[in-house]
Structure formats: C-alpha cells, structure tokens
C-alpha cells in the first residue's frame, strides 16, 4: 500500500504482559516517529529514527518501552510488563526528510489501540 500501516490495529493485554507493535512506513521514507495518544488528547512524542539510528528517545516514558528499526524500514515498539496507564493509541509516522531539512511533513498510520486490563 501507499500509506503507513500498523499492526495489530487493536491489542488487549493483561497487566504484566509484554506487547509488540509494528509499523511499516511509506517506502523510501528515511525518518520514522512513534507517538502515544491518550483519549481526548493530542499525540505525544515517544521516539524518532533516521534510517536505523534512534536519534531521539527522550519521550519514552520508562525503561519498559523499547523501539527498534534494525534495517531502516519496519519498526517495532515493545512495551514490557504493561501497566494500565499504558492504555492508549500508539501512532507511527514517517517522513522522507532528514534531520538536515528545514521542516518535515509527517504521514501517520491508523494507530494501534492498546488496552491493558
């Protein structure tokens, strides 16, 4: 497809379980971003990759959150020992612009809605 895809679209986890969320960016897009969106709020930044390098992970809320993009394309966001406060929509976005560009337009996937019981 032409857009950003994410899987699964919905995930229900019991507290304490580990989850893995996948993002397939637009082909050729260099930059990839993960955001967390709580109900009724705007997205909040989690982490940013340029190709396979994780250049900014300042938004990850705890060391239970881990993201990777080993080949510079598909990315996985992993949450270990999930807690109820992790319940949110996790959005992935990609952009063809690099860190040296004057601005970047980000294109979002549909998100993964995570519910932790």
């Amino acid at each position, binding site marked *: 497809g032409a857009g950003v895809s994410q899987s699964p679209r919905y995930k229900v986890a019991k507290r304490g379980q580990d989850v893995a969320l996948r993002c397939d960016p637009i082909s050729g897009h260099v930059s990839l971003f993960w955001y967390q969106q709580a109900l009724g709020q705007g997205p909040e930044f989690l982490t940013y990759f340029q190709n396979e390098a994780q250049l*900014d992970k300042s938004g990850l809320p705890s060391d239970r959150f881990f993201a990777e993009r080993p080949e510079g394309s598909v990315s996985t966001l992993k949450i270990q020992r999930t807690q109820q406060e992790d319940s949110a929509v996790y959005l992935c976005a990609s952009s063809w612009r690099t860190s040296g560009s004057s*601005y*970047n*337009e980000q*294109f979002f996937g*549909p*998100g993964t809605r995570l519910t932790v019981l």
Partner: protein
Amino acid sequence: TQLLEQSPQFLSIQEGENLTVYCNSSSVFSSLQWYRQEPGEGPVLLVTVVTGGEVKKLKRLTFQFGDARKDSSLHITAAQPGDTGLYLCAGERRDTGRRALTFGSGTRLQVQP
C-alpha cells in the same frame, strides 16, 4: 501545561456557518502543521506553514501562521458535515531543533446538517 494551546476545545455548529480555530504558544516554531483526525484513524495532514505571516488556502479552509511564528489559525468557510473531526495543530520547535512534532490537544468540531 500544553505547549500548544488550541481553542476552542469543542465546537458544534450548523452547516453553512463559518468558524475559526486558534493555536497559540509562547515558543517559536520552525514550521506548523494542521491535521484532521477521525475516530479510529491516524491524523491526516492538511497543510504545512513555514513562513511568518504566511496564508494558505485549501478550498474552504484558510490557514495562517503568525508573524512571530508562535501562533496559527484555521478558518473554515461554510462548514459542511464532512468537516466534522478532530483538528490538531502541531509544530517543530525552533529552540530545541528536535524533529518531533509538538501537538496541541485538539479542537473537536461537529457540523450538524
């Protein structure tokens, strides 16, 4: 405290009315983007503004970037039910140089037929 303040938070209007949504900050942004998000979907990019004072038009939507690059507005003329959704402004902060977008909390618009 939200870095980007959007107002109003909620807006319910009749088809054909005009409306303006505001996005304000004390920080300067390199660029500012407007997105629309529908339930169960990701945000869809509407426009990017990069120059202070810039005005862009997209059919019935008019976007303006403040001269000081700290604020922006979205004006919709003759709103239609298809305009219903969550409108989000988002910007790249100039001072941090970070690539991440900082989002406002959104304006939820409901246009009644």
